[in-house]
């Protein structure tokens, strides 16, 4: 269990973390979500004892990270944004070094290293130089490093950045496997990822915790507004005419594309389902509907709403939108790269 109380980190005039407080309960996967520069990495660096906080406390299993750093650090495995690997070491050599560094007794070191290599599936790579590994394998070695010494909590800072779609899926599976024995905290600016993997989401914006709840609860926050989107060959006036009988409609916005089709976004009153009504209204007037879809408020909207004051954030959300359209878990590598450059 990790308790973070009123954490503040100030770099000169810049407030990176602003009075952050939360508690990490054992046995869950937590997701830190926020645009780049929101203070996720800084928070993680403070929680692991790499950076000192300007004020506030981090208490790991009852040990304050400042007063009893060694005891507290023993309970945490950390994979920073850039895996801390020594390029000129063999994979196995490196993991043995980490095991010794973390104080794993000599007799168990061998087993511990084997166990971690098996879990992240790098046993075949054990005699390779780290310098020669691909990014995906480096990330795995980094994860193996984090789990050595069986810490209660494993903290992963943006574990999927810069990986290809297949590797991202594999890393996610790995995270789920890790979660069987450890509490996992991961950070990401990709919403789809956090939504898929995590049991509990903490949205951070400008160093502040703006929301924290389970993904379902967060979605419920904005469930009220439901939208139907239709595309049809008819023009604006005709659509208005067809839909005037449906009283649940609150607002319609139109958009005409270059093929002469009109896309209408229909905002509906809370709690009503008018999909069928819209369909039959168009059928009765013998006007063809090219598409009809319901857009449910998703986590993205929560995210947007909570962080909407910042232009940067919009960019990050727009990015996650692109991601979502690409069928959630298989985003293309290019978009991925763009994100890391943002």
């Amino acid at each position, binding site marked *: 269990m990790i308790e973070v109380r009123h954490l503040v980190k100030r770099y000169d005039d810049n407030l990176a973390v602003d009075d952050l407080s939360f508690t990490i309960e054992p046995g869950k996967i937590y997701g830190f979500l926020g645009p780049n520069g929101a203070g996720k990495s800084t928070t993680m*660096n403070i929680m692991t004892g790499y950076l000192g906080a300007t004020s506030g406390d981090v208490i790991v299993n009852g040990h304050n990270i400042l007063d009893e750093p060694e005891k507290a650090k023993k309970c945490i495995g950390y994979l920073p944004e850039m895996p801390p690997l020594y390029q000129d070491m063999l994979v196995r050599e490196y993991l043995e070094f980490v095991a010794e560094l973390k104080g794993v007794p000599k007799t168990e070191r061998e087993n511990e290293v084997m166990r971690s290599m098996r879990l992240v599936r790098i046993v075949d790579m054990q005699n390779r130089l780290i310098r020669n590994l691909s990014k995906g394998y480096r990330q795995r070695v980094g994860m193996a490093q984090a789990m050595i010494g069986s810490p209660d909590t494993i903290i992963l800072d943006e574990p999927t950045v810069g990986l290809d779609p297949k590797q991202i899926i594999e890393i996610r599976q790995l995270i789920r496997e890790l979660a069987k024995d450890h509490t996992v905290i991961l950070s990401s600016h990709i919403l789809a990822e956090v939504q898929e993997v995590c049991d509990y989401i903490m949205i951070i914006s400008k160093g502040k915790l703006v929301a924290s709840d389970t993904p379902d609860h967060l979605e419920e926050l904005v469930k009220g507004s439901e939208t139907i989107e239709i595309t049809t060959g008819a023009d604006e006036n005709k659509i208005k005419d067809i839909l005037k009988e449906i009283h649940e409609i609150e607002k319609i916005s139109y958009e005409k594309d270059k093929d002469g089709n009109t896309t209408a976004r229909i905002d509906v009153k809370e709690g009503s389902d008018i999909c069928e009504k819209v369909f039959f209204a168009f059928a009765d007037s013998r006007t063809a509907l090219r598409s009809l879809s319901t857009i449910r408020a998703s986590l993205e909207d929560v995210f947007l709403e909570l962080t909407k004051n910042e232009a940067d954030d919009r960019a990050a959300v727009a990015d996650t939108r692109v991601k979502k359209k690409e069928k959630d878990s298989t985003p293309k590598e290019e978009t991925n790269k763009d994100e890391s450059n943002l």
Partner: protein
Amino acid sequence: MKAIYKKEMRSYFTSMIGCVFIAFVMALLGIYFMVYNLSNGYTSFGSALSSISFIFLIAVPILTMRSFSEERHNKTDQLLLTAPVSLPRVVMGKYLAMITVFLIPMAVSCTFPLIIRHYGTVSFKLDYSCILAFYLMGCAYIAVGMFLSALTESQIIAAVSTFAVLFLLHLWDKLVKYLPTSASGSLITLIILLSLIVLLIYKVTKNWFLSGIIEAAAVIVPVVFYIVKSASFENLITNALKNLSLRTVLENFTTNNIFDIKGLVYYVSVAFVFIFLTIQSQQKRRWS
């Protein structure tokens, strides 16, 4: 600490830096040994060591430049600092690895007096105490280099600044002579030096009031002393700074044939001060 020591030793020999360092030191020691002792017939190995002390200017930066700056550059310091190991142990592990690498050529050079013995008379006590002094001087220099490496992310800057500082230390005796020796000159130099220290205090504490008081004291106290007894200010600065020379200690061993215990303690203290400063600089980085 043991884990870090072992890892450092391994990386010195897989990355060639350790080998290059040892080869360089061995080659120069060999050449000087040949010229001084074998060709020109000096019976004391110390005389060769005393002329070769410039070797540190090049060898120490090679050895120390990567110690901390590389970790910082590759962000591997995140592993060391988030592992359940205290910072002094990390620093000591690295330092011990460096002085162990330096021990290897020195151990080889311990056979040189035996070779001289083959051709003539040798004072083993004298030669081995010279080797000891030479080694401890190297250890002090290595601590300086390690500290400078801890201040930067770039190995090049670490190497160049280490070279510059060691160069200054190497010529210390000669440079000190250019400082003013007259009483009034000493007074002014003293006040300037104290003011620099006060400036440093202000940088650290950001307290105008406190630094103001100390600065006032730093000006008034020497001036009062100067008015009361100006003769004591003659050569004050030069004498004081002369005592800080690292090379004089080695010279005491090699040329004056004195076993200078005070000097050896001085070497060890310099090493400890810079190890301490390295720890502090790493610690400070986490809080800024």
